[in-house]
């Protein structure tokens, strides 16, 4: 009972704080505009430094990633002398599937066929959902086609309506992983030697993904206390996605690059890998939560007394840009996807409850982690509303009311400076994004490159529309005790060009 009340309280905190910040700003603007201007100046200056800092981190992260471009990871694996060797390691590649087309899954498996790693060490698991009609037949066709390419291709079917579960990727993946555990034990494979990669169905791996992953696993002194995070690059359907969606997803890739530089804050996101032994120890992915990808990290963090981190692999995996039937539908799809990501704020609730019962983790670390999660989600839910709406309202009000206070005048000046910095970041983004664009498929006009350049002009619109609102929506739903359904992102491609570009040697 007490735990339920604490949980409810923790659910209210993020949205409560976000709304409090927004309401306080609005209140100040109405009743004390000069104070509002001072607070907004501080806020804009904070973003001025933060944007500069992040753009430099982005450049450094890009440098770090591309400096590893030509490394022969497989050779390094072979030459490595640790307690384990390359031959010991097994890879489980788990694809939870729900409503993805056969083509999407086949493309993902085709990318597995092209890796530089011994494929007989790969066991592919296609985890279907019983609630999807005809899935078994479709997966069997795929299994038949790819059976010979890997050690094994296993199909699991997650039963519908299992008690205590919410339908979603986490529940499906957990069901499949439990089955795989039995399979491994039957085949006398030591769980300590197994790395599981849980991929979205549209994930096409880089050629060097598994050799790089294995190298880090073999050489890291705390291999079981690590999650291994590739860089998600959303470019499978980049030539067929609207500019708006391209900008958003490229932004997500950049955000992951920046996050990869902040080791202490870096958590798993989307497709990632980890030790199977560790996964079993933490009782698999959460089955009753939406943000399974980040919560598996926090589950490990709690289980191992804070001695758990995420290792950035520096190798990309290629995924689909979420698109709809038309532009409006694409905006809706993107909105829902971002809202689902923002639902990751449930990590705050999870950690709050777990930390209460956990004596292993030092209090300082607990506070730091709680603050870290809360800070990132509150910033997410408020920054674009403040910068894109509240600041212009103050400036507009200043203009129409003929106010001539110096502080309002300076707010306008600082706001202009922030937008200049923003332009600089757009330029950095434009340059870096060039390196994530695969070769142009046949039949696509060269003119599309112009849209790849000018798409960045949409950034202010994108940040205003899809910057804070999905996050505020997710937090508000949580505050009112509403649940978020797992909306699988539609995966649709007109043509796939799974071209390995970053680490192609």
């Amino acid at each position, binding site marked *: 009972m007490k735990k339920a009340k604490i949980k409810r309280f923790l659910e209210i905190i993020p949205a409560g704080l976000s709304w409090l910040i927004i309401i306080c700003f609005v209140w100040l603007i109405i009743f004390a505009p000069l104070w509002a201007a*001072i607070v907004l*100046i*501080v806020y804009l*200056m904070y973003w001025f*430094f933060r944007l500069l800092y992040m753009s430099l981190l982005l450049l*450094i992260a890009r440098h770090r990633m591309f400096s590893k471009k030509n490394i022969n990871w497989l050779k390094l694996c072979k030459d490595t002398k640790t307690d384990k060797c390359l031959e010991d390691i097994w890879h489980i590649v788990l694809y939870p599937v729900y409503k993805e087309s056969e083509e999407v899954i086949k493309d993902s498996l085709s990318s597995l066929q092209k890796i530089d790693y011994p494929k007989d060490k790969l066991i592919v698991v296609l985890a279907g959902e019983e609630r999807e009609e005809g899935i078994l037949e479709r997966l069997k066709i795929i299994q038949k086609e790819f059976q010979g390419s890997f050690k094994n291709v296993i199909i699991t079917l997650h039963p519908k309506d299992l008690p205590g579960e919410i339908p979603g990727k986490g529940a499906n993946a957990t069901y499949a992983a439990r089955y795989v555990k039995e399979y491994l034990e039957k085949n006398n494979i030591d769980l300590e030697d197994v790395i599981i990669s849980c991929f979205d169905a549209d994930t096409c791996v880089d050629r060097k993904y598994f050799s790089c992953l294995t190298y880090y696993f073999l050489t890291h002194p705390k291999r079981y206390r690590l999650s291994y995070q590739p860089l998600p690059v959303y470019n499978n359907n980049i030539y067929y996605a609207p500019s708006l969606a391209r900008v958003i997803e490229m932004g997500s890739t950049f955000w992951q690059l920046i996050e990869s530089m902040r080791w202490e804050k870096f958590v798993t996101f989307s497709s990632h890998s980890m030790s199977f032994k560790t996964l079993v120890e933490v009782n698999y992915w959460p089955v009753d939560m939406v943000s399974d990808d980040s919560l598996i990290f926090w589950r490990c963090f709690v289980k191992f007394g804070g001695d758990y981190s995420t290792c950035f692999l520096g190798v990309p995996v290629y995924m689909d840009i979420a698109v709809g039937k038309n532009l409006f539908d694409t905006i809706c799809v993107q909105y829902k996807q971002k809202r689902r990501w923002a639902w990751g704020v449930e990590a705050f609730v999870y950690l709050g409850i777990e930390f209460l019962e956990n004596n292993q983790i030092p209090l300082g670390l607990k506070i730091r982690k709680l603050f870290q999660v809360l800070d990132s989600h509150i910033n997410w839910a408020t920054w674009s509303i403040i910068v894109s709406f509240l600041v212009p309202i103050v400036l507009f009000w200043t203009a129409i009311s003929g106010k*001539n206070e*110096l*502080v309002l*005048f300076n707010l306008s000046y600082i706001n202009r400076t922030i937008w200049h910095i923003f332009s600089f970041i757009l330029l950095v983004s434009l340059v870096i994004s060039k390196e994530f664009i695969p070769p142009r498929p046949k039949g696509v006009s060269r003119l599309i490159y112009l849209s790849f350049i000018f798409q960045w002009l949409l950034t202010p619109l994108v940040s205003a529309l899809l910057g804070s609102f999905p996050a505020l929506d997710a937090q508000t739903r949580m505050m009112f005790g509403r649940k978020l359904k797992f909306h699988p992102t539609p995966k649709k491609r007109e043509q796939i060009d799974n071209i390995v570009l970053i680490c192609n040697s």
Partner: protein
Amino acid sequence: MEERFYKNTRKVLFWFFFLSFLIVIPLVIFSSLGYKFNLNLKHFQRTGVISIRSLPSHAEVYLQDKRLDKLSPCDISELLPARYRIRLEKEGFYPYEVNIEVKPALVSLLDAVLIPKIKDVEKIKPELNVYKFFVMEHLFGKKIIAFAKEGIYIFNEDLEEIAKIAPIALSEEELTSIKGIKEGRNNFVFWNLEDIWLIDYGAWGIKKELTLEHLYKAPEPIETVFFGFKDRYLIIQAETKIIALDIKNKNVVFEIYRLNSKDAQVYYDVSSDTLFIKDKLTSSEGFTLFKINVAKKIYEKGQD
């Protein structure tokens, strides 16, 4: 490069930006509120800003006769409260000078429109001896009517000739004494103290050669003329008489009202065919304002 290098670089960057923020933010807030540290007096003083905008932009800015290294639009900040003389100069425009008071923590706005120096004279093409001219506002632009020795010429805004009546049978005395001009439907009238003439021009730009017709000779000096009653009539104020004249049948002339004072003032509203009059209703009273529905009057006269 080693991971440690990236970690250290990131740490250095983080602390650099964090400390920069902590150092810069108080300075920015103080500066935003207009505070400036006076090194000589060793204390803070509140300053103000002059924000200068000009049309056209890129004018040179002079503060107290000293040229600043900036062009308009610009802001002159950190000014101690006082009156400042600002001058804007731009080649081809008259200098703009103004005294502006700067108040602490406030922005004084100077929004100046610079007037160009008159250099180029655009002359009408035909060589004319112009006695008088009038500008008539028209839906599709202005029309300039010039009364010259050589005739009556109509020009557009670019002084291009649209139409003319030349030569004309009006004397120099008549042309120089023209008092006014009014436009009606496909025609306009002009008058001096004694006569009213009508020019029929058809639709603008269609009828190149215009016709001039003498419309009316007034027994008393003409004050003003209006078009009225769907442009069929002229409403003429001739000293104390208000006369209606049918344009198509110029023999139809009748008095519709008699004013009491020579100093009366008349305005005719075309849309309602109403006369607004400032006049004395009796000789002993002062001036008052009243109106007469002329349409009704004309109708009554027609019945007679």
